[in-house]
Every structure is written in structure tokens, then in C-alpha cells.
């Protein structure tokens, strides 16, 4: 009997059970990565600045995220007198939830064959997966703007305004750089994009997989840089800019609400790494089509690639200073956007010629 895809129609009970397990696993792993990304970042930046980073809480500071969390729980939860209460309370959630929800479409392995069913290792396979990702990362900026506006503080407002302008200028280039991928894959489903990337490189080289970074290096660079700008990481962390705006949009926040912003920042970092890995670096597939590599389960490769990209993002933060605001705008509109358009044009021409 041919195994069939597990769905709500052929076996609702098992489907709901499996879905709950997948949800818990993905959510748990994401939260764990978010918590330990803070420790990892402090360690790496510390060593890069010839310091040690956290050392006291546990072995080499391994319990630091837990200590931080506990500390933030016991802090006074302050709401400024002049703040607009409802948006002020809503804003942290509006940043964190879109960041976490995006993980739902990231595939983390091949279909599992259990009993008579095929279980996809992905929470949901939307046929418009990439559009969904862009919709939710775009929503994230509302949280920042609302936080900045509702705090009724000049620094917060400036942070919020900067976030809006930055998001508008970089979302365009990010979207355009991805279009080149769709021209090659002819699908928006992340699951199929990953399976296409497992084929031989350009149909010639049998042991190197056909990752889109090889055919679209420019798009990869563009997407990665615009991604950094979208999640407000250094060198594009204008909305927070400690040295200019105190703490930007989260100046007035304290206690767990501040922790939510903090978590959202690292969740965004994880998500943007996961998206880049899925679109350009073959998702959960092995880096070489060799038996030893392909035997390793998919989620290991996915996590390894995500961690590598996150390391690179942290490395960038330790190395480069923040760009000036007009430089940021110049880069977005006059460099990234034309390059992305050019990339689309060239890809289109090549695809037409090869057909």
C-alpha cells in the first residue's frame, strides 16, 4: 500500500497529535536558541574584544540567560504616566509573535515514513510560504513603531520613525532579491524550494547540491544585508542606537516587557538565519551529496547552518560600527534596490535564453 500524506481528512486524531508534538518541538527549540543566543553573543563579542564574557553563573556563564530572565521578572513593571496604555502593552507582543510565528513554514527534514503515513517535518507547508514570511516580518515593524509612539518619549518616537523608514527602504530590496529565486524555482513553497536545492549542481556536478547561493550569489548578499537591516542588527541598528537614542523604541520599557523586546531581537535573528538557510543554503539538506553527510538527520544540518549564520551576524556586530542614517538610506535606495532590479533582469534573461 502506498503511504499517503498525513492530513486532517484521512486521520484527524493522529494528525492533531503529531501537529502538537511538532509545534512543541519547534517552539521549544526556538525559545531555547533565543535564550542561548544571548549567552553566545555575549561570549563571542567578549572574546572578540579580548574579554571573557559571562563567567560566573555556572560553567563559563552557561546559566546566564536563566539569571537574566529571573532578574527581569523581579524588576518593577513601569508604565509611563503619559503613555497610551493599550498600544504600550500591545507593542512587545506585536514584535515577538510575528518573529516566532514565521518559524512555522521552515522545513526541518525529509518526510517521515511512519506506518501508512508520510509525516512532513515542517509545521505547515504553505504554497505561498515565502509570501507568508514576508508578511509577518513586515508586521514586526508595527510593534516597533507602536512602542516608539505610545511611550510618548522623544527618544522612543525617533527610534520608531527610524525603524519605519529603514523597513520601507529595505523590504523592497529584500523582496526583489528573492524574486530571482522564484524565477529559478517556479514555486513559493519552502518545502519544494528545499527539495529543488537537493538536485545536482546545475544538473552537472553530482556530489555538490544545487544550492541557490551558487546560482544567485548577488541575491544572497543582498538578502542577507537587507535582512540585517530589517531585524535591526548592527551595523544597521538605528532604531535602538544606544549611543544616540538611549535605547530607541524600548527606552520606556522595563521588566518582562523589555525582555520581550530582547527576545524578539534574537528570535528575529534566528528566523532571518533560518529563512536565508532555507532559500539559499539548501535548508535541511546536506552540504555534499555523500552518504556520510546525507545520513545525518536534516534538523542537525539546518541547526548547524543557522548557527553558522548567527555566528556571522554576531561577528559583524563585533567588527563594524553603526552606519550613519543618510548612509543607510543611500545604501538602501541607491545601491541595494538597483542591484536587486539588475539581478532580476539578468536572471530573467538567463532563464529565457536557457529555455
Amino acid at each position, binding site marked *: 500500500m502506498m503511504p499517503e500524506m498525513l492530513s486532517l481528512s484521512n486521520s484527524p486524531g493522529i494528525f492533531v497529535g503529531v501537529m502538537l508534538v511538532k509545534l512543541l518541538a519547534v517552539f521549544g527549540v526556538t525559545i531555547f536558541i533565543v535564550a542561548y543566543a544571548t549567552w553566545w553573543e555575549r561570549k563571542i563579542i567578549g*572574546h*572578540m*574584544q*579580548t*574579554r*571573557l564574557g559571562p563567567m560566573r553563573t555556572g560553567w563559563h556563564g552557561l546559566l546566564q540567560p536563566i539569571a537574566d530572565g529571573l532578574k527581569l521578572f523581579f524588576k518593577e513593571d513601569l508604565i509611563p504616566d503619559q503613555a497610551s496604555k493599550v498600544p504600550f502593552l500591545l507593542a512587545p507582543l506585536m514584535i515577538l509573535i510575528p518573529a516566532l510565528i514565521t518559524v512555522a513554514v521552515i522545513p526541518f527534514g525529509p518526510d517521515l515514513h511512519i506506518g501508512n503515513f508520510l509525516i512532513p517535518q515542517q509545521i505547515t507547508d504553505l504554497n505561498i510560504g515565502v509570501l507568508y514570511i514576508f508578511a509577518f516580518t513586515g508586521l514586526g515593524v508595527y510593534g516597533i513603531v507602536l512602542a516608539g509612539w505610545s511611550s510618548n518619549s522623544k527618544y522612543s518616537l525617533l527610534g520608531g520613525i527610524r525603524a519605519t523608514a529603514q523597513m520601507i527602504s529595505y523590504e523592497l530590496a529584500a523582496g526583489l532579491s528573492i524574486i530571482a529565486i522564484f524565477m529559478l524555482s517556479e514555486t513559493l513553497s519552502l518545502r519544494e524550494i528545499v527539495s529543488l536545492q537537493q538536485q545536482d549542481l546545475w544538473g552537472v556536478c553530482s556530489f555538490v547540491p544545487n544550492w541557490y547561493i551558487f546560482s544567485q550569489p548577488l541575491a544572497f548578499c543582498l538578502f542577507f544585508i537587507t535582512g540585517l537591516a530589517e531585524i535591526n542588527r548592527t551595523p544597521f541598528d538605528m532604531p535602538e542606537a544606544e549611543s544616540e537614542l538611549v535605547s530607541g523604541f524600548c527606552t520606556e520599557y522595563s521588566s518582562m516587557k523589555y525582555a520581550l523586546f530582547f527576545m524578539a531581537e534574537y528570535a528575529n535573528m534566528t528566523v532571518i538565519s533560518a529563512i536565508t538557510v532555507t532559500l539559499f543554503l539548501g535548508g535541511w539538506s546536506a552540504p555534499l551529496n555523500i552518504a556520510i553527510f546525507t545520513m545525518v538527520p536534516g534538523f542537525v544540518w539546518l541547526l548547524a547552518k543557522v548557527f553558522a549564520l548567527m555566528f556571522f551576524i554576531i*561577528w*559583524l556586530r563585533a*567588527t*563594524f560600527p553603526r552606519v550613519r542614517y543618510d548612509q543607510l538610506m543611500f545604501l538602501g535606495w541607491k545601491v541595494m534596490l538597483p542591484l536587486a532590479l539588475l539581478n532580476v533582469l539578468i536572471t530573467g534573461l538567463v532563464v529565457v535564453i536557457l529555455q
Partner: protein
Amino acid sequence: MFLEFAKGLSITFKHLLPGHSTTVQYPKVKLQMSDRFRGLHRLVPSQDREKCVACYLCPTVCPAKCITVESAENEKGEKYPKIYTIDLLRCIFCGYCVEACPVEAIEMTGAYELADYNRDDFQFTKQRLLK
């Protein structure tokens, strides 16, 4: 431009490699203080008493006016400090008292962990300075 980016990245990566950290894990590991470090004062003892002859040069030269001396005569007819107190809360650790002393009766040690809970505990009397 890209070459400079790569250069910067390589420098930070070099620092990441083990053995580049300059941090001293302070309470567990302590650095050896230089011999010329100006820490807590110490009155130098001689055979049976302190070397100090209560000449009042140190309270005179002290820019922070933190040294209190009261002289007296012992049974041998020698001058000695009946009271010798340094108020560490006022002291600026300039070391002028050590320079001014004609008999090298006061010196500065390497002790720098001087925090305490009461203001009174910062009054270093003769007995404490002789230790």
C-alpha cells in the same frame, strides 16, 4: 572597500581565538602589585617601638589633611607619637607622607581592598597601622 571589511573581520576573528583574552578573573586571580604601588599605609616598627619620632612633617605636607599626630615623651626622654591616625576617607594616596618622613617610619603597602561598612572603620589608628 571589501578588502577593508575582510581585514576588520579577520582582526576580530583573531581575537576570538583562545589565548587573546586579557581579562583577569579578579577575586579568584589577583595581579602582583608593583613595588611602587601606593596602597594602605604602614608604620614601620623598630626594636621596641615605632620608628616615628613625631616630627609633624607628614601632617604638614599632607594635601588632604588626613593625618593626625600628637607627640609625647616616653620614659627615656624620646619623642614618640601618642596618637597617630590616618583618615582613609580623606586620604588621596599621594605618598607625600612617605617622601616627607626623615626617618622612613611610614611606608605604603600593596593592600588595595579597603572597602568597609562603617565610617569609623576607616580611621586607621597607630595600632592598626603598625600591623
